[in-house]
């Protein structure tokens, strides 16, 4: 086939020259060309290789349904596999490579699969590769995986950026062709908010490729006038290069705007693509119809194209698909291709109309053979001739180098079937029409089966007017534009007796024989046949093949097409990049960062930060010369234990709870009691889930008769607030209680150690801190530094004499520097979460590791906190047999036996002498630390009947890290069990 640029015609800008490369060979094209049209203009018709048989393939369509002409577009980190050459707008310096071939497109070793094709029928792989067993992972599968896939993706991060945006409109018009433009005009003129989207760079849809007239003018001129009017309307948004890829609940549509895919690299500040989520009151599905191939021998050769695509090449791109063309059609539209190609100076050798009773239609001077069929194309890398079987059975050979085929039109129903409805078979149109999708989405034009231009224009206006009236607008019903053009009629021709393989699904190489084979083997349902043959499972998702395949399956199973039905239509209508869905929320921006008001100070102190939920918290503060984190952490612990340490605890959840029923509310969400808590005091609280398992813990202070201040763990802060909201609003709306997060109003720091009080005394105004004025668990507003309103809590997670100072966040930076200054004489030392963890493990306090979502209060040694005098969340379920059985894993301390032996969290506990097995499992280690105070590794664990086994020697199993060692269970309070340091 030698395709070529026609001397005149097309919408391309012939004054521009754009240089591009395909498989390292250089060519030129014009602005307005697609990569496919530019290649064809340069006589290149071989563009790809099919998936299984590696057959030579060229472009068969002119748009996004393209199954064959897939290329790797661009190079380096911007390489995009499987890009449809028919949808790539040519740009200067474009580079593309063919796919799925080795060593080259012309000489592809994979083509030998065609020799084995008798073996490689549908589903062959289910029947073999089973012997010898080990060969599968070693030999068979690696070979299959290397042969599979089309293009190759690059393993480098994407340099481009992507955006997300919400859209709102009264009417969304999907498709900018005749019906779509009329719908948008009708709505725009009625003052509605309209969005009109079209997947191509230019709106106009099929009109761009047709030679039709509207109101006596070329349809392209009408399109320009319509677009100009729409552009002048303030409330109309025109979105070219935008595919509405999915219809979702709430009449929400997903759309992909290819903002900068038509240029080499996106300009600065602009995204490559923008992902829209459009909430529409109503929408018009004006997506047109897709032309079906016909199923005859070698119908997959480069040069065989949809008839509409071939006339589109001439009318839109000024390119002829070949020197001598044969048109093969079972409907009226084939005649337009004959006329347009003849007008463009291309020889149309014959028009084969399979309908013996076809009416007299205008084919110009092209000879028409009625009741005839093309049984086979001859030629491999391009078309040489066609074998025609006439109505009387006689056979003749017609030389040609291109075949335009038309098997009728399938309305593009996809979106209308994305929410569970099935399309409806229409016998007269031999096509599936959209289901009734109510007032949310209404099909118009060819998508609704109106196959002529005049009908499409009228339908677009009428359907839009109906929707707008329902929305309360008053659209003017002007007379629709006048358009001539042929009527449309089709009589189905699902396949032709052929000598060569006849293809149904081009990309997955599904042939006409594969459907009867599937039916014969029991895969009769359309879904089973699809999965067994992979019909419609390629990157074009059956846009060209599904209806032909369904018809062949109907024939093979003796059912009607309506009975066979369609497989499920699913988003995305055409593939959408991962990057578009992710938008800006990738890499470091995957989740927002939350910083405490003392973050900058911690950075200055050289903190190493760790993620804590969305927060960053200092983990430790390394100093020059320290050989690793353990050395830094040990120093921090010793400083706090022996002098004074300061730690940023701002990330704790803080909830202000007020109102007459605040106390009662706490009683119902905590398992321990609150009515006896005096103003100015704090109390440790334990919160259960309704299933009786521990949910969260923290201290709550009473700041006034009806004013409490609750703290939660960092991890559960949001979940606890949500839980309070549920309990109040859904369970006990009668309670007069109000609560709001104040987590970020307060910067909070723990000041712990023997010199903590002396340090704080320098800052606190008007109080001499001692056990009377500020006893253990005191919690009161204070004033510091001559005027800053603060709150002071005498609470201790470290087990030291400690306070938590809370100041309004904007002052926190200055206050912690003042604290550091005040504590300088005591060598005050910042400590991080690791040191905090060492100290809480030394003191046997429970934390995240122990609140693992399966432990009860009793398991944690806190059973006595569970009140029996009041109802609270979780009380009843906590009494179940399994929750109180004796052999539950309970909280216990653990120490290694043997000098220098480390402990490892996640190791399991076995009785000494027991064989390693899950049945023998006694529990596991939840947390470990090196304790500088005991100069030994210590840990906490959950062990069956652990509280009764202090002093018992056990075997620790850590096979995962190849270590097993002995240890001893003990009291979880490893250090200062009498808590003397708290009260010193």
């Amino acid at each position, binding site marked *: 086939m030698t395709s070529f640029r026609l001397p005149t015609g097309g919408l391309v800008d012939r004054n521009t020259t754009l240089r591009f490369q395909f498989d390292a060979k250089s060519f030129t094209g014009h602005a307005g060309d697609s990569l496919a049209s530019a290649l064809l203009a340069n006589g290149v018709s071989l563009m790809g290789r099919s998936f299984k048989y590696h057959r030579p393939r060229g472009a068969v369509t002119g748009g996004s349904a393209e199954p064959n002409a897939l290329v790797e577009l661009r190079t380096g980190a911007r390489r995009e596999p499987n890009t449809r050459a028919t949808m790539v707008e040519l740009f200067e310096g474009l580079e593309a490579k063919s796919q799925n071939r080795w060593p080259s497109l012309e000489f592809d070793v994979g083509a030998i699969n065609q020799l084995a094709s008798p073996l490689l029928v549908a589903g062959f792989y289910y029947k073999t590769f089973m012997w010898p067993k080990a060969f599968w992972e070693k030999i068979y599968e690696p070979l299959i995986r290397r042969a599979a896939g089309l293009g190759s993706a690059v393993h480098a991060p994407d340099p481009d950026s992507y955006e997300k945006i919400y859209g709102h409109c009264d009417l969304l018009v999907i498709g900018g062709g005749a019906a779509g433009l009329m719908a948008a005009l009708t709505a725009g003129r009625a003052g509605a908010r309209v969005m009109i989207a079209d997947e191509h760079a230019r709106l106009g849809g099929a009109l761009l490729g047709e030679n039709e007239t509207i109101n006596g003018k070329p349809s392209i001129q009408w399109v320009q006038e319509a677009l100009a009017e729409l552009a002048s309307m303030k409330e109309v948004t025109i979105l070219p290069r935008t595919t509405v890829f999915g219809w979702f609940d709430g009449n929400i549509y997903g759309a992909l705007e290819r903002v900068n895919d038509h240029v080499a690299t996106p300009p600065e500040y602009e995204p490559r693509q923008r992902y829209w989520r459009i909430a529409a009151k109503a929408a018009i599905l004006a997506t047109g119809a897709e032309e079906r191939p016909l199923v005859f021998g070698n119908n997959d050769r480069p040069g065989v194209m949809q008839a509409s695509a071939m006339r589109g090449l001439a009318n839109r791109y000024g390119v002829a698909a070949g020197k001598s063309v044969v048109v093969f059609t079972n409907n009226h539209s084939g005649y337009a291709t004959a006329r347009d190609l003849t007008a463009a100076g291309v020889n149309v050798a014959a028009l084969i109309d399979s309908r013996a009773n076809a009416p007299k239609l205008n084919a110009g001077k092209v000879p028409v053979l009625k009741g005839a069929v093309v049984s086979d194309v001859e030629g491999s890398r391009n078309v040489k001739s066609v074998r025609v079987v006439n109505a009387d059975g006689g056979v003749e050979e017609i030389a040609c180098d291109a075949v335009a085929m038309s098997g009728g039109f399938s309305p593009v129903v996809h979106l209308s079937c994305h929410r569970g409805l099935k399309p409806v078979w229409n016998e007269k149109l031999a096509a599936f029409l959209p289901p009734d999708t109510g007032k949310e989405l209404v099909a118009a034009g060819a998508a609704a089966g109106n196959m002529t231009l005049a009908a499409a224009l009228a339908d677009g206006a009428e359907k839009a007017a109906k929707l707008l009236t329902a929305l309360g607008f008053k659209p003017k019903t002007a007379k629709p534009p006048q358009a001539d053009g042929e009527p449309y009629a089709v009589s189905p021709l699902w396949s032709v007796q052929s000598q060569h393989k006849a293809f149904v699904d081009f990309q997955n190489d599904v042939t006409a024989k594969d459907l009867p084979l599937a039916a014969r083997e029991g895969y009769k349902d359309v879904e089973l046949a699809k999965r067994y043959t992979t019909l419609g499972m390629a990157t074009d998702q059956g846009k060209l093949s599904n209806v032909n395949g369904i018809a062949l399956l109907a024939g093979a199973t003796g059912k009607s097409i309506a009975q066979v039905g369609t497989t499920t239509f699913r988003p995305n209508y055409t593939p959408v990049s991962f990057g578009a869905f992710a938008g800006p929320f990738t890499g470091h921006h995957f989740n927002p960062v939350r910083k405490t008001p003392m973050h900058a100070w911690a950075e200055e102190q050289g903190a190493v930060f760790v993620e804590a939920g969305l927060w960053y918290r200092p983990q430790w503060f390394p100093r020059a010369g320290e050989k690793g984190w353990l050395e830094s952490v040990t120093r921090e612990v010793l400083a706090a234990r022996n002098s004074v340490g300061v730690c940023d605890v701002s990330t704790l959840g803080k909830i202000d709870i007020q*109102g007459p029923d605040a106390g009662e509310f706490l009683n119902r969400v905590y398992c321990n009691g609150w009515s006896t808590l005096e103003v100015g005091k704090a109390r440790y609280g334990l919160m259960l889930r309704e299933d009786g398992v521990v949910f969260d813990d923290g201290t709550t202070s009473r700041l006034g008769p009806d004013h409490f201040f609750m703290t939660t763990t960092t991890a559960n802060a949001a979940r606890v607030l949500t839980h309070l909201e549920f309990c109040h609003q859904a369970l006990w709306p009668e309670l007069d209680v109000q609560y709001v997060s104040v987590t970020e109003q307060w910067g909070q720091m723990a000041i712990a150690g023997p010199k903590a009080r002396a340090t704080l005394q320098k800052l606190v105004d008007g109080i001499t801190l001692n056990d009377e004025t500020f006893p253990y668990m005191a919690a009161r507003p204070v004033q510091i530094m001559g005027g800053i309103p603060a709150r002071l809590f005498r609470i201790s997670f470290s087990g030291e004499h400690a306070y938590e100072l809370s100041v309004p966040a904007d002052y926190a930076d200055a206050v912690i520097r003042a604290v550091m200054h005040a504590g300088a004489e005591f060598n005050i030392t910042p400590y991080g979460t690791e040191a905090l963890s060492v100290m809480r493990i030394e003191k046997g306090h429970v934390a995240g590791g122990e609140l693992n979502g399966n432990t009860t209060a009793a398991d944690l040694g806190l059973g006595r906190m569970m009140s029996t005098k009041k109802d609270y969340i979780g009380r009843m379920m906590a009494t179940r047999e399994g929750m109180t059985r004796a052999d539950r894993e309970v909280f216990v301390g653990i120490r290694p036996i043997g000098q220098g032996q480390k402990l490892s969290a996640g190791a399991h506990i076995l009785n000494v002498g027991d064989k390693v097995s899950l049945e023998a499992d006694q529990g596991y280690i939840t947390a470990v630390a090196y304790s500088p105070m005991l100069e030994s590794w210590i840990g906490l664990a959950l062990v069956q009947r652990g509280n009764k086994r202090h002093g018992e020697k056990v075997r620790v199993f850590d096979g995962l890290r190849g270590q097993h060692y002995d240890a001893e269970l003990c009291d979880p309070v490893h250090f200062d069990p009498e808590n003397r340091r708290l009260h010193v």
Partner: protein
Amino acid sequence: MSDQAQLRRIHTLGKHYVPGRYGKPVATPGIRISMVHPVSIVSIITRAGKTKLLDAAMLSKFGAELPHPGGTMQGRAVTFYWCGAEQYFAVATGMAEGALYDALRQAAGDLASFSDQSHARMMLKVEGPAARKLLAKGTPVDLHPNIFPEDGSAVTQMAHVGVHLAADGPNGFVLSVFRGFGESFWEWLTSQAAEFGYEVR
């Protein structure tokens, strides 16, 4: 509060907030962003059955009743933004630390629960011809002038962060987020404003 006088309130963006022109170099910036700081913010939650009494108290003390759901009411030197069922933000500038909180408690101590949030939120003003398109990259709330009223006040989310959003003049909005997210939200907002050209005031 003498010492506190030199202790200025440090807003969450610190050195990241640098006035100037950024993004696409266009003649007039599509977006102008400014920080509202320092600011007094107090959350108000009406106590059971006290709605009318609270409105009366607010009217007498501050010259405005509390707004209907989704609304804003301008009082004397204080603005009330709706931000939840029977829940509001009282916002004022130029007041001393804790002054607005005290004034509200004094006016209606047992009619509602008040919590000082003055340091809890980063508050920004976003104005300009492209303000609506910028914010549409974050919130699903329809900000079209015919839909989102001049006194609109909404609680929504943008870029995975909770946001309170209110109309502020014909082409302006005031937004606030938890201060901890300030820097992260700022990075997202300014990255999305780049294509319009924006000015930080």
